[in-house]
């Protein structure tokens, strides 16, 4: 556990926190600060010091902490120049932050209760093995088509192009918007274009996948028509005029 030596030396490890609100609550609750009267200058200094030390945070997480830092700095400034609202009463610039902190704290507590329930449940086991029984002949016939399976295949492709938070690509990202432009550009020059022709200049699998997704997206927007006469034959992309079926 951390000790408070002086307000500026309040050491915390950012990695432990689920987000900026979690960190703020920790700073407030561990120093027995009245949440309705937060010493904003001190808390801001501690918050900034904490993110300053964490230089290895992933980009997305760092952004979340920086956004809160900006909010704190703004509140600090507003505290120096109180605004009067109608009726002559002073509006506390901290009010919205306090509301968010209390709300978050409530759900953090709810999550803890869920965790307790999960622990209780995980100490009881359902049957580990149940005999596989073939579906009775009288059951509903399966209507799933290969197209649906193929869509599932393409979902893997889509997932591969969408980076997980904190996952960094080496090299440049392949953007679907760029590919859409490329497809539309090619179709301005001719009525139809072979899919392979859209892909070959770049070669990599990722480009091929994103190009295909671009075509599918355009097909969904009814801007193009994608045709293939049989499996393994060339895939053609057709320009589609408005109102054309």
């Amino acid at each position, binding site marked *: 556990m951390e000790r408070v030596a002086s307000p500026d030396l309040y050491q915390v490890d950012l990695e432990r926190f689920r987000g900026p609100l979690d960190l703020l609550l920790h700073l407030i609750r561990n120093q027995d600060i009245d949440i309705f009267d937060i010493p904003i200058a001190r808390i801001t200094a501690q918050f900034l010091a904490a993110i300053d030390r964490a230089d290895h945070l992933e980009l997305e997480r760092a952004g979340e902490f920086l956004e*809160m830092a900006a909010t704190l700095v703004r509140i600090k400034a507003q505290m120096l120049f109180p605004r009067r609202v109608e009726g002559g009463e002073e509006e506390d610039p901290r009010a919205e932050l306090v509301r968010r902190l209390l709300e978050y704290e409530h759900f953090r507590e*709810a999550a803890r209760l869920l965790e307790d329930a999960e622990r209780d449940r995980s100490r009881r*086991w359902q049957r580990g093995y149940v005999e596989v029984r073939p579906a009775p002949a009288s059951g509903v016939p399966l209507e799933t088509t290969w197209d649906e399976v193929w869509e599932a295949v393409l979902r893997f492709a889509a997932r591969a192009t969408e980076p997980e938070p904190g996952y960094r690509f080496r090299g440049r990202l392949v953007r679907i918007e760029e590919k859409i432009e490329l497809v539309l550009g090619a179709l301005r020059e001719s009525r139809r274009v072979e899919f392979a022709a859209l892909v070959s200049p770049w070669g990599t699998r990722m480009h091929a996948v994103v190009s295909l997704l671009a075509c599918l997206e355009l097909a969904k927007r009814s801007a193009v028509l994608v045709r293939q006469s049989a499996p393994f034959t060339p895939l053609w992309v057709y320009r589609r005029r408005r109102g054309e079926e």
Partner: protein
Amino acid sequence: MRASRVVEAVLFASQAPVSAAELARVDEDLDEERVEEAVAELRVEYEREGRAFGIFEIGGGYQLLTRPEFAPVLERFDSVPANARLSAPALETLAIIAYRQPVGRAEIEEIRGVGAGGVLRTLQERELVEVVGRGEGLGRPLLYGTTRRFLEHFGFRSIEDLPRPEELPVVLSQRSEEVKPNGA
């Protein structure tokens, strides 16, 4: 065949909870009331015989589960699969969805102060939450709610069974009306 043994066979052969209505369909002589009687009868027997498992009410159905006192033995056993536990961000997100449903991604992110995309996808893939409708307003955002699988995972009988944190700050109820469920 005794009603209680028919009920026992179905509960034993199912990994997930089975509702009284589903059980009643198995036999013409059964109705929900007789199913409940059979369950009560089995409970008395299991208790008396000191069986290692019992009948628990979960997610609107009945489920056979081992009693908690056998956990230390089962935790150590290789061919007994460990019950998966959720991460802290997943639990927080799930808590928000459970208490606020139907709720959109923006509101979840607002409450937690962090992005929710990755966690939401994990929860959907584990079938703990699902899209239950679309909200009003810009882009008609997807709204999420909890599933039956959610109740099973936590061992709740129904959504009313959710534990409630002691102090509910008054501010909490303010915003619920802003999000209007649509398809839910």
